[in-house]
């Protein structure tokens, strides 16, 4: 977390890689949720432990998303969608000019 803070909000290859890793690991953990649950099968408070695991990984993911947002990598501004706006359709036609 500290490293994340130190990395700053500029976009360069190392912070970007770190953010990717940070987002990827919780995702990976969530994918292997069933395997983890299987390992926890013996435990008595299985549900609670599973929930804690879920919440922890979710927090990690949220942190990564927040970091992305802080770095400006999420398309949340109208300017991010500007290139996809189609030109408005023309309703009237006009022509003419100085009298020939």
């Amino acid at each position, binding site marked *: 977390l500290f490293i994340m803070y130190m990395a700053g909000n500029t976009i360069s290859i190392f912070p970007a890689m770190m953010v990717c890793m940070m987002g990827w690991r919780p995702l990976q953990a969530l994918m292997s949720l069933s395997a983890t649950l299987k390992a926890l099968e013996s435990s008595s408070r299985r549900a609670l432990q599973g929930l804690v695991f879920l919440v922890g990984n979710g927090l990690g993911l949220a942190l990564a998303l927040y970091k992305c947002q802080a770095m400006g990598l999420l398309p949340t501004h109208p300017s991010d969608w500007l290139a996809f706006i189609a030109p408005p359709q023309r309703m009237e036609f006009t022509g003419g000019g100085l009298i*020939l």
Partner: protein
Amino acid sequence: AVYEDQVGKFDWRQQYVGKLKFASLEASQGSKKLIVATEKNVVAALNSRSGEILWRHVDKGTPEGAIDAMLIHGQDAITVSNAGRILRSWETNIGGLNWETSLDTGSFQVASLVGLQDVVKYVAVLKKAAISLHYLSNGHQKWVEHLPDSESTQYQLLYSHGTGVIHVLGIIPQSHLSVVTFSVEDGEVTKQVRVAAPWLQSLSGVCSVVGEAVLVCVDMDTHSLYVCSLETEQEMKQIPLQSLELEFAAGFQPRILATQPSVISASRPQFFLQLSPSHFSLLQYKQGLLSHLRDFQQAALVSFATTGEKTVAAVLTCRNELKPGSSDGLPPGSAQEESQEQDSLTCSNQTYNINLYLVETGQRLLDTTITFTLEQSGAKPQQLYIQVFLKKDDSVGYRALVQTEDHMLMFLQQPGKLVWSREESLAEVVSLEMVDLPLTGAQAELEGEFGKKADGLLGMFLKRLSSQLILLQAWTAHLWKMFYDARKPRSQIKNEINIDNLARDEFNLQKMMVMVTASGKLFGIESSSGTILWKQYLRNVRPGSSFKLMVQRTTAHFPHPPQCTLLVKDKETKLSFLYVFNPIFGKRSQVAPPVLKRPILQTLLLPIMDQDYAKVLLLIDDEYKVTAFPATKNVLRQLEEIAHTIFFYLVDAEQGKLSGFRLKKDLTTEESWEVMIPTEVQRIVTVKGKRSNEHVHSQGRVMGDRSVLYKSLNPNLLAVVTESTDTHHERTFIGIYLMDGVTGRIIHSSVQKKAKGPVHIVHSENWVVYQYWNTKARRNEFTVLELYEGTEQYNATAFSSLDRPNLPQVLQQSYIFPSAISAMEATITERGITSRHLLIGLPSGAILSLPKALLDPRRPEIPTEQSREENLIPYSPDVQIHAERFINYNQTISRMRGIYTAPSGLESTCLVVAYGLDIYQTRVYPSKQFDVLKDDYDYVLISSVLFGLVFATMITKRLAQVKLLNRAWR
């Protein structure tokens, strides 16, 4: 800027001189040049072998630079320009200026060389009230004398023949002639004679001096010639023409053409009498006797030429009968009757003969016939200049320079060989369009397959197979040609472009330029090389007509041929006609355009198409009725449906009125708005709409805080420029009005005080840039206006001028520009992604490519974090001219009048044509060539590295396999 090895790779320039006013051909066989002075105020020397320009001097384009006379003496050419104010002498070999003197004011009449005792030493200039004599060697004035009774007498002729006196002939109309004789030495009036001539109106054309100072005049009313010796006699002797059995044509002012081979000796006693437009007669006046030497019927032009002792007359005749002008299948319509009223004569099969006749006897010289055929129907020869020389066997040989009505110069050699020709009408291009070239036959075949209706699975399959086979065939032919060409030395390979092998290239960089010139001649020029592929002369176009060229159908709709339409409107009669043609081959289209009975005020090209994919052209006439072309049922039905969305705007600069009209279903219009701009205060000079083929990729601009500032892209927006009628430097102003062409709503108006035109304006996307002269600070300034909707878009899906509650925000900034400009245009690209540049034509002939980002009203005075984020350049008031921004390096364009830009198939590339006296074509890359590999891209290195890597992988794979095997054995 271009690299040295790119010079001439994409660009070309053609230089012109304009229509000839005076020309001089040296009378020797070995001479290499001919000196011309033209109506475009150009003095130039042309290479008589190739027709290239040896040197050229371009004077001001205004009447101040007009050349009034040109005289040739030896190696010097003397010109009188600026209404007789400036006398110049040019060295004709290299085109240097020998000397220049300014003359006194007074309307110029005539100039002549004056010789004394076998040497030509002076040049005499006759003005309305004075005559002056200048030394040929340095231009110093020898003497200047006032002419007696200059208020009442019009002095029009000057004559000397080496006897030490100059005769000046003046006339008081319908009263008498006045002959004043000056001494060359000191300018003293030695003699003054009055000759009664009550029938005489004017001297020019009607009178001429022949022989030893004998004045010959012709009078139409009495059908007679009048003769008077200037030195001895005091009365005119009347010789009735009936005695020579000659008759004048009714209503034609007869003319006399005489020749004086050298100013130190007497004129020839022979002269031409023009009796009708096509009837000349060679006469001789010798020792008081007038005799008739030869009659020339059906002659179009005559000319004299002298070499050594021999003087010959050249006569240009039509091979067939001359017949009254008919508009050989040219645009029908009301203009046709007009042209038939003129008593013009055309040659039926456009074949002409030039013959030489010895003037002393009127005998035809043997073997001196030049026969030539004009390719353009209806263009008749207008001027004839002859260069005569004696061959080794003492016979006479000659070359002829012929200028035709369509401003074409032809240099002919015996026996009818065209040495070179020049298309001088291209010196005055008025309208220009670029049309895509058609696809090749094989490509067209493929396209055609998709165009046709399906006829069964098997049929389609066979068709596909056949077209693939054609493609294969074309490809092998191409390969074979490449192989064949590779064996030949490089110099022999000529990539000749002609009309048969025209085809679009991969990136559509090669286009057909359709040019309309002021003389009424149309040209089709291939844009990559500048070769003229076709030309067409519209005969019944009178000078000063206005033209509007429109592309109705592009080449995209195979098998329908592309179609261009030219609207020509005569300035005087106000009548207009349409000329429809194929822009690739220059042929007149089969489609019959509508006959226009009323004067057409304006046109509108709609994006809707008829079933043949031709865009619909609407023409509005002076009763505000609309004519559609093409007017098929399909079109009329479509028009009825969308009539309520079609609007016209008309700008009457004379009355200061702008008015808008709405189209109704029955193709009439009703006025919907009107704006008056009082003409007492200001007059409208320019109205600029947007280009219809312009694409804008980005709908807004990203701000520093990552919000969007949306552009106000009103396709109906007009920029109207006015100039004040008061030109005093304290009170003069210019006005800019941004108006909506549909509703007439004024979106923005501003008045720039202490500013003066001429205003150059560019209107594109959401911005307007204009340039003017600031009279207070005495400098040229640019002002840029940009329109934004704000951070919210009102209606993102459709734009309607009728539903715009909010006015756009207008941002404005001004800059100082260090030079005046002569033309301005913005670059345009296929999809509008590439950043825009302004192309600015400077009076020096250079074209400056200025990034639009430099003229951005959002440039901050104090740069902030946000403006840096946006890449805005901090504001600095001066825009500098950097020589590396010139796109035409040293290929300057004289008297540039316009710049035309066209998109190419590559997004990065924009085609540019600048025209004026010269024509220049090039390509520009406003955002560099981001979609093309560079010329110096190292294909060898990249491919060798790639192959090397692949090879290395294969080797290591093999090695690894061997090693694995070995380990397994262990």
